[in-house]
């Protein structure tokens, strides 16, 4: 067992975990943050993507102990005081989700993209999403959802909170 201390969605967390616990398992099983989903066992699908110190990371690729001392943001931490993040709003407005399973990972990956490029081209968006699978939408409306959010962020109505 090992002790991990980290900040998750702005809250300090201190837990004992088995050494082999993946960060995805830690979030889901220990913290009950079940918005982070696990869709594969090869770090391919991206459903478990979260932000670690502002960068998109597949939480099934790292151990909880490796995240010790870091700032974690999950889908549960994206809205502020009940107001949806521009990406959450974009996905709703542009029908960027159907079953919702890949959605949290898509949003976290897109948050990383928009934090360093608030005016991505369609091709840049598609390339940024290479590590995230969606089986429902054909990605068409996910691209539009991210464009919607980028536009809103550029207009200054909302700051990127990646």
């Amino acid at each position, binding site marked *: 067992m090992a002790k991990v201390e980290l900040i998750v969605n702005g809250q300090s967390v201190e837990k004992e975990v088995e050494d082999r616990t993946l960060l995805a398992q830690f979030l889901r099983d220990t913290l009950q943050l079940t918005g982070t989903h696990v869709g594969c066992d090869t770090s391919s699908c991206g459903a478990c993507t979260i932000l670690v110190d502002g960068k998109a990371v597949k939480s099934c690729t790292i151990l909880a102990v490796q995240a010790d001392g870091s700032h974690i943001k*999950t889908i549960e931490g994206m809205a502020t005081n009940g107001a949806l993040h521009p990406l959450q709003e974009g996905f709703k407005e542009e029908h960027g989700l159907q079953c919702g399973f890949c959605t949290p990972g898509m949003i976290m990956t897109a948050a990383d993209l928009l934090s360093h490029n608030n005016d991505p081209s369609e091709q840049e968006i598609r390339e940024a999403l290479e590590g995230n699978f969606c089986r429902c939408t054909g990605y068409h409306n996910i691209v539009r959802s991210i464009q919607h959010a980028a536009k809103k962020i550029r207009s200054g109505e909302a700051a990127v909170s990646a």
Partner: protein
Amino acid sequence: MTFIGKSVKRVEDQRFLTGKGRYTDDIVLPGMTYAYILRSPYAHAKILSINTSKAEAMDGVVKIFTGKDIAAAGINGVPCGWQVNFKNGDTMKEPPHPLLVADKARYAGDGVAMIIAESKEAARDAADMVDVEYEELDAVTNAADAVADGKPLVHDDAPNNMCFDWELGNPIDEVNAAMSAADHITSLEFTNQRVIPNAMEPRAAIGQYEDHSGKYTLHTTSQNPHLTRLLMCAFVLGVPEHKVRVVAPDVGGGFGSKIFHYAEEALVIWASKQLNRPVKWTSDRSEAFLTDAHGRDHISKAEMGFDKDGNILALRVKTHANLGAYLSTFAPCVPTWLHGTLLQGLYTTPKINVDVTGVFTHTTPVDAYRGAGRPEATYLLERLLDKAALEMKRDPAELRLQNFIPAFDGVKEEGYMTQVALQYDSGNYHGVLERALEMVGYEDFRKEQAAARDEGRLLGIGFSTYIEACGIAPSAVVGALGARAGLYESAQVRVQPTGKVSVYSGSHSHGQGHETTFAQVVADKLGIPLEDVEIVHGDSEAVAFGMGTYGSRSLAVGGSAIVRSIEKVLEKGAQIAAHKLEANPEDLEYAGGKWTVKGTDKSVAFGDVALTAYVPHDYPQGLEPGMDFSSFYDPANFTYPFGAHIAIVEVDKDTGKVSLKRFIAVDDVGNVINPMIVDGQIHGGLAQGIGQALFEGAIYDEYGQLTNGSYMDYTMPRADDLPSFEVDRQVTPCPHNPLGVKGAGEAGCIGSTPAVVNAVMDALAPFGIKDLEMPMTPERVWRTMNS
């Protein structure tokens, strides 16, 4: 306020966008244990012995069950829900499908033991310590090979591995005669390869037994919770149905793979009673590749005869359909009644004969995958049409237009009777193709293509026009065809005393957006705000009964059931309103959420009538209080969506890589309730169909090993593999259901595959290549160009 026809934003999105969706694996119950299924690594092997003692002694292990324990408990295997007999009348071969096998494994992935522990990790660790001694046997994986004499048998009582053979259409002699009179025959031998559904949420199930009540609860990733309950209770476990609640909460995609009743569902329910503790099983992705029912896997020979003017004279088809090692719930129906019946396509072909052999192999069971049989039929026809055009030096679009069935509305003009048992409801096939040609700018493209060829670039255009049978299905018809269930749908509309409305639907949403689309229908018909309507689905305790969601049936069948219940609400409401208004019910009209005496301003609102129904102090004599109606809607016919898809590709001469440049889809799904949702359904279907054309395909080796059973090996379509889609719609209402809707879930997946393949063939035409198998990977295309 009208909602029907508007792109209302989805009400379910809020929970999914904030991480509050509740999928089966998110659920934790007090005292829960975790199951891991140990599976056969061999496709065909005798199980000589299983020793669990070391595993049982490990920390955290609660219990291990093997196939022998299941057999000793007298538990039956998983049943099949559809019967397709041999041509000679013999009953189809239906070997047992045990929950865990005791003596023989028949595919790599067959369950051998269930290890239950205090944690997932402990269960998996213990599984490594279970000693199973196998004797590996030879395997068969290819359906056309498996029927030959002397091949290894999957089941001893199914000679030549045949499950059934089946025929439909005109007598073969008539078809042969028409074929011999043809001026040109185009033939095609091909594999419609096996694909793996890959819903992003892996399957999961939680069994819970409560000894104080003797009741069970199954949480499961199902498209079809009531049918799962029926099959599991009546045929597998013999548990009383009224003591079992099945809940399919948020489900992360299905695409067919979650229709079926799976062994793990019955295992966790049974085990939860043995242990008196909840048991959760969650598949990982590798396990999903091996155990979720696969799709397609047909090997076909097809011939189409034409006269000298290009009119189609006849179609002859022979298909070997791979069913896998056991019969999944709807397996026999898919290559027969959902495939052979669609071989008329959009064409006036006067003579058609289709012959299908269903074959067992040492592979994962095969069943319905998005489109189910209809993509296979469409692929066959549309490849034939493009190939025939090439051979006869005709334009592929023009050849189709020439052979299309003329438009008919199904009301003034009768439905079109096909040679293969169906009567199409309504259609305007020329309309969709002409619109698609206009969108693509066909003449300009041909000029661009010619110029590109001069520069040595390989551009291609491909067409596909399709029809599908959806809105599944009229119970009496499917009963006559071998279904062991009715295929109606139920809906209960409960008007609460305050005028809020709860709707309980037997349909199930796993991404389709029922909570929005159904609410739009209800709010519109009742003239009340959308937020006053709640759609409840996926819980057998809340919903009377249901047949679930597949076959693009939710709105056409489930939505129609809701409309029927609303009609009953309005009829009773009119009686109460008439009493309040001191008028005759016949003199009232209902609009904008109130009943008005025609020609006056005297009216009473829906909410007042609802309250009166529950507080019936001043009330029509003899009328029951309350306002709560159920309906079971059994459709009069299938619905028949159709459309035209066009793909433009460029093939890289040096690498063989196919780039999809444009994709145009014009679909006619009848009336549309929510255009945004329908477009979304089309987009997703397109990606899956394009995936089959270019990327996806299960590969078994000669030993029956699935060699690409992970995302490192099986190519899923990614965002940068696809262009933005250009979609448009034509509306030809369905004449036989109250909403005029046809269904949109599968259309994209049915039409797109042959369009892309035809485009690649067109691009490769300068090489004289006429046939190429899917998926059209860079390697395959490069090798073909360079051979």
